[in-house]
Every structure is written in structure tokens, then in C-alpha cells.
């Protein structure tokens, strides 16, 4: 039981990091659609660099740069050139996927360094929770940090309020003296760097090694997670953990029902559609009216300025 929960928390870590990154990006009003491509290209470069240097940390650093660079292209093309974010994001998705296959061809099947386990002294001795939460590695601890930090930043700090402002009412934020486009650019780059770190954690931690099917199309799931989570970091995290639980459960069911392994790669996607239908259903939207204090958590509305170019008059 302990080990099942331990592996759920570990399996969800990359998805958590990627979807937190995307939550930050979208909260500022920019859609980075390239997640699937960003994840793959950063997973590939992380593996290649860690393989050459012989240390996983170098791989994570370069992967963050790759994710940030892709995000910077999207941010610049939207803010500087007023291009459609979806169009550029989609092109970058396909481009990064093919680039990862092309450049990573020679690394398939190689063995590289991995992230070492790092149980936290004393905390990991707590019964049950110690084993589940604190007998993990740095990637998993970083995933905890991203949830807490994103929530705190959004709802408990002044810059976080500004971040919500540029996503919801860019014109009003601008009138209050906030440089909307500059902030949007850097939040997009930050979110992209987090996606890059998530990519690296696939090839250096969760799965080890590089192959084209490594990320299991979870980049798309991370994008859907942000919608399912209503752009609220805690609900996004809840969705990612539920998804991690299903993954681990399905993996364990494989021994009981051999047919499951063929359904496994496809199953997330009908589930994703149903989850989105659920959060947009009348029943769920009324839930928010019943518990007004939890409106932030239960709301499903996208930031009002999402995907729109902001131009000052």
C-alpha cells in the first residue's frame, strides 16, 4: 500500500511540473500549445547532455533551456509579431517532435545517468506519509515545490495578483502601470523552462533512456490537466495525481488482465474528453455557486485574456 502511493507520487511528478509550468503561462494570458514537442525535445537533449557529461544535473539544466527557448519563440511571435499562438505552438509541436527523433536517433538504447534517490532524514521515518512523500528523489521534491510555490505566488503575493491581472484584464493591468507584454514574455519563458525540466525527468528519472514513445503523449494530457484544473494550481495537481493513480493502477492490472497493456496508451484520451465534459457540465458549474468561498478552486473559466494579443492604444 505504501509503495503503491509512493509510486503514484513519483509517477505523477513530471506531469505535475509540466502542468504547473503551463498553468503559470496560461494564467498570464499565453497558450503554449507546444507541450508535447517541448517535452520530447527536452527529454532527448537532457539525455544526450547527461550522457556526455555523465551527470544528470547538466541534463536538467539544458532541458530547462530548451523548454524556455521554445516558449520564448511562442511568446515573441505572439507579443512581438502578433501571430496566432495556437498556430505557432502547433508548428513547434510537430517540429520539436521530429527534431527529437532526428537528433536522438543515435541515443536510442543507450544507458545514461539517473537521478539518485534521496530520502529526507527524519521526515522519511514518519509512518506511512514519510515513506510516501519523503522517500523520493529531487525531481519529486521539486514537483511538491512547484505546487506550493505556484499556489502561494498566485494567491498570496502582490506580483501574483499582477500575474492574474495581465491574464484576466490586460488593459486594466496596463492602466495600473504594469508592463503586460514584458511580464507575459517572462512568465511564458518560466513556464517553458518548467516543461523542459519535466521532459528531463522522463529521460533521466521516470523512464530512463531516450526513445520516441518516451513521453506517452502526456504533453497533451498536461495541457488538458490545466483546463480540468480550472487554472487553479491545487486542482491541476489533484487532476495530475488522479491521473498518476490511474496509470499505476493500470500498470498493476496488467498482470491480472493481459489485454490492458494494449488499451493503456489510448485510455488517457477518452478519459481526458470525459473529464473536460465533466468540468463544463451544468452540475459542476453549479457546485461553484453552492460554495462561494471555494469559487477560485471550483471555477472553470479560462483567464479572460487567454490567447489574445495585448496592444496598448
Amino acid at each position, binding site marked *: 500500500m505504501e509503495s503503491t502511493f509512493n509510486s503514484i507520487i513519483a509517477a505523477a511528478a513530471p506531469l505535475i511540473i509540466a502542468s504547473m509550468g503551463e498553468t503559470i503561462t496560461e494564467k498570464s494570458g499565453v497558450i503554449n*500549445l507546444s507541450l508535447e514537442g517541448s517535452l520530447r525535445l527536452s527529454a532527448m537533449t537532457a539525455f544526450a547532455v547527461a550522457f556526455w557529461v555523465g551527470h544528470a544535473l547538466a541534463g536538467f539544466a539544458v532541458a530547462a533551456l530548451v523548454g524556455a527557448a521554445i516558449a520564448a*519563440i511562442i511568446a515573441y*511571435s505572439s507579443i*512581438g*509579431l*502578433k*501571430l496566432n499562438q*495556437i*498556430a*505557432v505552438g*502547433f*508548428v*513547434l509541436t*510537430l*517540429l520539436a*517532435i*521530429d*527534431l527529437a*527523433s*532526428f*537528433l536522438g*536517433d*543515435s541515443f536510442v538504447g543507450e544507458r545514461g545517468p539517473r537521478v539518485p534517490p534521496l530520502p529526507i532524514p527524519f521526515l522519511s521515518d514518519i509512518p506511512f506519509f514519510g515513506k510516501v512523500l519523503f522517500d523520493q528523489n529531487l525531481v519529486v521534491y521539486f514537483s511538491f515545490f512547484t505546487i506550493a510555490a505556484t499556489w502561494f505566488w498566485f494567491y498570496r503575493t502582490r506580483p501574483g495578483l499582477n500575474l492574474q491581472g495581465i491574464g484576466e484584464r490586460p488593459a486594466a493591468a496596463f492602466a495600473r502601470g504594469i508592463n503586460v507584454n514584458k511580464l507575459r514574455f517572462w512568465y511564458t519563458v518560466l513556464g517553458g523552462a518548467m516543461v523542459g525540466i519535466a521532459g528531463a525527468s522522463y529521460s533521466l528519472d521516470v523512464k530512463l533512456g531516450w526513445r520516441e514513445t518516451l513521453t506517452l*503523449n502526456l504533453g*497533451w494530457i498536461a*495541457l*488538458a490537466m490545466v*483546463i480540468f484544473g480550472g487554472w487553479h494550481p491545487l486542482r491541476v495537481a489533484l487532476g495530475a495525481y488522479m491521473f498518476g493513480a490511474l496509470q499505476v493502477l493500470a500498470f498493476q492490472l496488467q498482470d491480472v488482465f493481459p489485454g490492458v497493456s*494494449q*488499451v493503456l*496508451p*489510448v485510455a*488517457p*484520451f*477518452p478519459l*481526458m*474528453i470525459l473529464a*473536460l*465534459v465533466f468540468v*463544463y457540465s451544468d452540475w459542476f458549474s453549479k457546485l461553484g455557486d453552492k460554495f462561494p468561498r471555494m469559487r477560485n478552486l471550483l471555477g472553470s473559466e479560462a483567464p479572460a485574456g487567454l490567447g489574445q494579443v495585448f496592444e496598448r492604444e
Partner: protein
Amino acid sequence: MTQSLKVTSTLVAVGAALAVGILLLLAVGAPPLEALWLLVVGSVGSASKLAITLLAWSPLILAAAGLVVTFAAGLWNIGVEGQLIMGAIAASWVARSVSGPVWVVVPLTIIAGALGGGAWALLAGVLKTHGHVHEIFGGLGLDFVAAGLATYLVIGPWKRAGVASTSGTDIFREEAWMPTFEAFGVSWPVIPVALGIASVVFVWLLLRGTLFGLKLKAVGSNTYSSYIRGIPTNRYLLGAFAIGGALAGVAGSVQATAFHHKLVPAISGGYGFLAILVVLLAGFSAVAIAPIAFFFVAISVGSTQLDLRLGVDSAFGGVLQGVIVLFVLLAGGWAAKHASNTLTPRKEP
């Protein structure tokens, strides 16, 4: 915007994309000029290569023509890949179960493909209009479901006698093969090419010359005000999905009955997603997709030669296509910005 600025910037973008391609080839230790020459020779270098390229051009242009319709309605039909696969599955079902003369079976496979793709697109459409699920996620989810269904059929119910392998079903009976035209010792794919050209003409006429097309474009440019003006917007959106999906489905039936002659898991050939790149590069114009799709499919077909001759991963073709579209989009944005800067006096803050 000045036309010459746009043309110049596009040419510069394509040149820069080629330069990036050459650098990437150098990075993996392949001779770049030989590789680029192989792309040309491998796609249009001989009559038989040209026939292969034309056969690949047809599904791409069909899918792209369908996307022009959905884009006109303001829809991001990422589900095109799944619609293509469902068209191929439906066509395969007819090819496997209906026997008769070729002029009966082949039209039936085409109709089945259109119905399969159209129905799959309508599902994404209903999810959008009635379930509020954005078509990007509804369509993408259905893409993976369709791909899973194709794999399941190939290794499950439709597996070859005795062996379940992902290499595909049994070859269809020949009366379900799209007939070809023999000339110069090569089988020319006249029916797929005719379907491709017909789809471009159909979409051009639909958007240029009909009331439906006019209203569809109105819905696409401003759904809310069209609704206020009394256009039943949901019906138009679903109509666009159905037409786009049906054309993608016909593309799938071409893949199944003219190219593979069986159902394989990777039946789509990635032409759905590639078609999105084609339409973006064509600036959503029905006429421009024909030459651009030919250029792109030549890169795809030619890049298989790179793998065979030089050991370069065939993903190079996709990289080159992606870089070209990205650079042309960026150059277009730059040109528009530059043009507006020179036309209107710059306001100092």
C-alpha cells in the same frame, strides 16, 4: 502591406530554413548537398517516383482541403488525423466485406470513407457545441482513440489468418483496389489525383460561390455577432466539421485502397497533421494548398531515400517542413509589422 515585402520575406524564410536543414545534416555527419539532391531525385527523379509522390499528394490535399473549410469556420480541427484514420477503417470494412465488380466496390469504399471521417468529425463537433470541450482537445483525444481502434482491428478482429502482427490486415481483394492508369511502364494514381483536384475545386467553389460558404466565413470571423444576426451558428460549425471530416475520410480511403491495399496501424501516414502545416503555410487559401502540398509531400517521400541511402533518420523531412512553416510564419509576422510601421507614423510613448 506591400506585396514585394511579403514575397521577399517568404523567400528569405525558405532560404533560411534550407540553411538550418544543411546545418542539421552537417551536425549528424551527412553530406548536405547530396542529401538535398536525394530529396529531389527521390520524389520526382523518375516516372515511378513521381507516381508515388502523386499518390501521397492525394490524401494530403484532400485532408488539407477539408481543413480549409474548418479553418474558414474558425475551427482548429486537430482531429483531422483521427478523421483520416476512421475514413480508412470504414473503407477497409467495405473492402473486406463487399464483393462485386470494381466500379461498385471502389465507389462504396470512397463513400464509406467520407461517412466514417464525417461522423468522427461530428463527434468532435458535438463535444464542442454541446459539451463545451474545445475542438483541439476533443479532436486530439479522438485522434488517439481512432489510432488505437486501427491497431486493435489489425491485431484483433481483422488479424491475418493465424498471425496477429502489427504489419497489417490481409491484402484486400483486387476489386477493392483503386484502379490505376498504366503508361510509361508506371501505374499512375489517376483516381486519387482526380479526387484531390476535385476536393480543391469543391472547397474553392463552396467558400467563394455559395451562401453557405459566405455564412460559414461570417461564423468563423465572429461567431457571436453571426449568432445575433440570426445565423444558426452551431449548425454551421457542425456542417464545417462534417465537410472537413468527410474530405479527410476520403483521404483515409485513398490510403487504404490505393496505397496500402490493407489496413495498417499507421494508416494515416501523418498526413492529417502535415495537412495542418500545409494550410497554415498556404495562408488558409484553397488554391495555394495544391502546390504547397506537392512540395511538402515531395520532401516526405524523398526523405525515405535519406534513410535508405545515407542512414539519416527520415524524421529529417518533418524537421525541414516544420522549420519552413515556422520561418515563413515568423517572416509574415515581421513583414506585416514592418509594413504597418512604415505606413503609420510611429507614436512616441
